[in-house]
């Protein structure tokens, strides 16, 4: 009997289409994603993660069963352990460097193992850049946070917050910090204890004690907060894109190269250091990977022109590399998101896709190209991209927008 392959193939196609209609892949994918990433984080044994904490508890039980001297060893082990942290009431796992966003439905707590906590308001975005045995270093990218640093062993704690060009050194206190990235406005109200604020537009480190408030911006001459400004810094006017480093800093820190700072995750300082070392010259000597990282750091700290410089130099110096294509993609993002230059974004995303037709950012590239073309007024181009996208990524993150374009 002849095998009815053609009929079954047609039948199978119909089943496949029916399955696609029957269930929402996007929902299934979203549901599984969080669980998988949590598992991955736990499996990776994050330095300072909760998995290592569980291990510490096992050690503690063993040691308590031993001699008093072993107890001392345990104490030493515990105090030498880096601070760990978790996010939200469910205790979601986070790694250093991850972006933590505030949530529209309420405050989001970030709790540290030694008792400190940082509460994110709805508009807040922060990253825990690093932890050590005595504290943590946090980057407030935007928005408002309430910080409460545990008072035990205050003098030994190393807590610092960075917000744009400002740095807050904490010595055990409660305070509210706000930072608006769009205009680099900084506000800090200390409720208990004292903090020290420094920054590129402060002539000297400025202590802010309990009951006081400090409002600053590096872009304007002066942004006072009249009602509570009992301690008001006098910001030095700074040029946009000023290369000035923070006013405070250990002498050793200034000697570190931008590459070392970048590797240590001190992104803002790395950008400052690169600017001090002549940014253009740095771009001519850095590796392709370093240029990508430097551009990313510059973009993060609103040095958009520096980011563009680094990415363009990368493409000139390493024209056939994968990094050059990634730079094209990054230039597209900058053009789209920060310059609102949609035709330019179209060019860059198209460049990436031409250079890396099977690259890791292919799906994102087609989706962004479609969006950029739409906003640039190229309806037929966006229509073409939407078809391309849905053909290859029918359940991808741009699928609903693609279908909307095709429906018009």
């Amino acid at each position, binding site marked *: 009997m002849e095998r009815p392959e053609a009929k079954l193939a047609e039948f*199978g196609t*119909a089943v496949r289409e029916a399955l696609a209609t029957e269930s929402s892949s996007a929902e299934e994918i979203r549901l*599984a994603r969080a669980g998988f990433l949590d598992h991955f984080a736990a499996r990776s044994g994050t330095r300072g993660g909760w998995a290592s904490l569980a291990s510490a508890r096992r050690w503690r039980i063993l040691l308590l069963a031993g001699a008093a001297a072993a107890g001392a060893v345990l104490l030493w082990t515990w105090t030498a352990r880096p601070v760990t942290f978790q996010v939200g009431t469910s205790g979601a796992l986070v790694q250093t460097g991850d972006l933590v966003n505030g949530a529209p439905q309420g405050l989001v707590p970030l709790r540290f193992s030694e008792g400190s906590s940082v509460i994110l308001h709805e508009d807040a975005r922060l990253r825990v850049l690093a932890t050590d045995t005595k504290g943590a270093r946090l980057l407030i990218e935007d928005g408002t946070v309430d910080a409460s640093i545990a008072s035990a062993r205050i003098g030994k704690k190393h807590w610092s917050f960075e917000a744009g060009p400002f740095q807050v050194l904490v010595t055990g206190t409660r305070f509210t910090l706000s930072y608006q990235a769009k205009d680099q406005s900084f506000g800090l109200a200390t409720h208990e204890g004292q903090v020290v604020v420094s920054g590129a537009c402060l002539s000297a480190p400025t202590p802010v004690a309990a009951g006081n408030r400090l409002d600053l911006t590096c872009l304007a001459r002066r942004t006072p907060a009249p009602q509570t400004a009992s301690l008001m810094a006098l910001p030095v006017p700074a040029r946009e894109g000023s290369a000035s480093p923070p006013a405070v800093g250990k002498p050793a820190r200034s000697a570190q190269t931008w590459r070392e700072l970048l590797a240590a995750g001190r992104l803002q300082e790395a950008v400052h250091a690169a600017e001090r070392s002549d940014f253009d010259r740095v771009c001519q000597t850095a590796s392709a990977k370093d240029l990508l990282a430097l551009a990313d750091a510059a973009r993060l700290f609103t040095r958009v022109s520096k980011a563009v410089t680094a990415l363009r130099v990368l493409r000139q110096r390493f024209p056939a590399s994968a990094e050059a294509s990634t730079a094209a993609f990054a230039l597209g993002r900058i053009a789209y998101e920060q310059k609102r230059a949609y035709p330019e974004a179209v060019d860059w995303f198209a460049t990436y896709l031409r250079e890396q037709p099977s690259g890791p950012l292919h799906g994102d590239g087609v989706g962004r190209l479609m969006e950029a073309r739409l906003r640039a007024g190229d309806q037929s181009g966006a229509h073409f991209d939407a078809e391309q996208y849905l053909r290859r990524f029918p359940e991808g993150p741009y699928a609903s927008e693609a279908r909307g374009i095709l429906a018009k």
Partner: protein
Amino acid sequence: MLTPLTFIGDEQALLQALRAGHPGAAAAFYDQHAAHVTRTLRSALGADEEIPDLLQEVFIRAIDGIGKLREIDRIGGWLTSIAIFVARARIRLRARRSWLRTFSPEQVDPAHQEQPSSEARAALREVYAVLGQLPIDERMAFALRYIEGMTLPDAAEACETSLATLKRRLSRAEKQFLEAASQRPVLEHWLEEGTRWNVQKRS
């Protein structure tokens, strides 16, 4: 709420970053391949409320075995074979627990679904009821070849068997499926008139 740092790099760099435990790489890896794995699981199992759990399991198994993957170009096929392994294990588990049905649309939250035509729903139920009667090897061969639309070599690789064995399984599956379908008016009608229901849906 959490957005891992974006991973930037090519496939080889992605593989190295996964082995090193880069969280952004895990997210990138998942985002690149989740749709493909979901489609494979669906082809094997039908619309199923356990797909998210199985999807997660596939990626966890993939990460656990990422050290063994040598050829980055084969990552898609490798994930397909893991998905088939996971789907087979789930079918066997359900077979042992006879109170569970292979296709259970009534358990799926309707709020999470688009509303298909009732004919499509009924047809899918019938399709997976028939596939549920097939031996598991034949079922997987049929699902990958016809529903997933894979080539014979790719389907053989996903089933971790030889091309000749896959062809034998497929031949048996075709025969058994058509025989069983002939006993079910919805499927018989559908097979005879091709994609009649899709034509109707678009009109």
